[in-house]
């Protein structure tokens, strides 16, 4: 699956996007794998109180997981996952 990063997650991961080959059945599983890979700086921007932060915007094929099954949203190998840390504007 393809994982795309924005804002400071690009600095933390060192890339704009990457092919993620390690199996992850759900969004939650993927995020935990990414935290394991990129460490505390990544964790700081996606986790809060031991859970995935609900202000983190995660899209699976363009759909916000907060309007799907949240972090239980299932993933397939050909999915594109987009992750924005909490940001805003106007």
């Amino acid at each position, binding site marked *: 699956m393809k994982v795309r990063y*924005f*804002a*400071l997650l*690009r600095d933390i991961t060192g890339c*704009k996007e990457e092919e993620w080959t390690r199996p992850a059945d759900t969004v939650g599983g993927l995020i935990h794998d990414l935290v394991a890979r990129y460490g505390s700086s990544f964790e700081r*921007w996606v986790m809060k109180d031991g859970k995935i*932060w*609900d*202000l983190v*915007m995660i*899209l699976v*094929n*363009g*759909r*916000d997981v*907060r*309007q799907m099954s949240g972090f239980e949203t299932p993933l397939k190998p050909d999915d594109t996952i*987009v992750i*924005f*840390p*909490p*940001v*805003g*504007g*106007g």
Partner: protein
Amino acid sequence: MYAWQGKVLRVDLTRGTFSTEPLRTDWAKTYVGARGLGTKYMYEEVDPTVDPLSPENKMIMLSGPLTATFAPCGGRYEVVTKGPLTGAIAAANSGGAFGPELKFAGYDAIIFEGKAEKPVYLWIKDDKVEIRDAGALWGKNVPETTDALREVTDPDARVACIGPAGEKLSLIASIMNDHHRAAGRSGVGAVMGAKNLKAVVVKGSGAVQVADQKGFYEACLAAREKIKAHPVGGTGLRMYGTNVLTNILNEVGGYPTNNFQTGTFANADAVGGETVADKQLERPRGCYGCVISCGRGTKVTNPKYAGEGEGPEYESAWGFGGDCGVDDIDAVTKANYICNELGLDTISMGSTIACAMELYEKGCFTKEDTGGIDLSFGNAEAMVEITRLTGLVEGFGKELAQGSYRMAEKYGHPELSMSVKKQEIPAYDPRAVQGIGLNYATANCGAAHVRGYTISPEVLGVPVKVDKDDIESKPGLVKTFQDLTATIDSSGACLFTTFGIGADEYAAMMTTATGTTYSTDDIMTCGDRIFTLERLWNLKAGLTKADDTLPPRLLNEALTEGNSKGAVSHLDQMLPAYYELRGWDADGVPTPAKLEELGIQA
């Protein structure tokens, strides 16, 4: 009195006289200040059918009770007048330090009446007020004017002025203050130009007294801590500015591209906040009392577009970027600088160029008409050049200087103007995000994202995620956001504080600052009252329910690609419920019962 200074400066430009008068405290308590109080003064003193560019229109500059206090981000002021772009009530909000300086000089508001015989500027140093000749400044741009006026008045004075666009009555002209800050929308700069008023220069040495110093300090401190602790208000906006939204809106399929012909832009990342941070950002900047620092101090080193200044914000980057099909961030930032220098609203400018590009590609005018400029989508050089010409109101820029609606109407296609009440729509496609479309259609100043920023819950999930495609929840959501925004705008604080605090915190700050008790409900009711008075003004000005709509493209043409493919705006299904929630009848007219509830005498 506390928080308010209790004094209004009234300037008769026709006679060249001025006077001071007590602030109407009864109005201040119920309409708060800035946007709300300005609307009340307009409602009581100006015929809503007046020609906006005539001497009979008034222009009011107002601070709010929290302006220049310890309140977080208390650096705002408002310009309230009848907007020449829209024919509706205009309330253009700006930051920087001009508003606080006005307050330090001892004034809550300046009411400008009439028209000066020749160009003048107003110089205020506390109680000393002078109307001075501005003949030598006429024709100068914003930085030249600002620097020249500081030289002849006070090097620390704050300046709000117009550039050539306002002088030449462009309907998309802004009023600029502190060099880079804009009271941008609805053509307020043209009102100033029509009055032959080049600038307002202020230096104050006073202070603002609050009713309960300890309580106010504690309320402000708590609010500041909440904003600083919030990931958006405390960190996100400082790091990437508002333009971080480019990629977000593009990913959800709501990034208007090529004059709203699509909702995705292939190279959006090239004009996004991440790219600005990598290539142009010198340092984040904040307004008076700011704890957020969303402003972008930038520099473009590319010789073709070299310059230095502030911006672009998300809306500006979108207007000159994706909406024009331009993916060159240096060109985008250069166009932003030109607008700041010549005094143009970046949102209306970008969207008007996009409209011109569509008209050009449809053959409504040719290269001969444009003076040799190839206005094809994606032409960065043309985009920058036509911005310059519009700011100077020269060549084909004269066409664009009237805004997209009048230009498109002239060439037989008013439907290609992406505007509401003739004011250009900002950077969120209402087909992809339903609530923001309802807000655009009902915002009293014409299309504006900062009248009810439902993007926050609908897209960002702040404070909680709301389904962007749902329509049943949106009338209530939009009303709530519009009402809270009206009070915050009127308080003199920055709307971005809502990335951290809400009505509870504003109730605490307003109560301790003013000595008048405001409950959380009062904060929302004040907003409802202000919004409803604006509506009454518009109805008296001749606007009707028919003006609460969106361009036909957004209602009828489904998005053809991207992650909101197939979507249209369902405004017609949301509007009746919205009117009902507001206490308006089926024609959008506030009912007598609603007016009584709000204490408004029509």
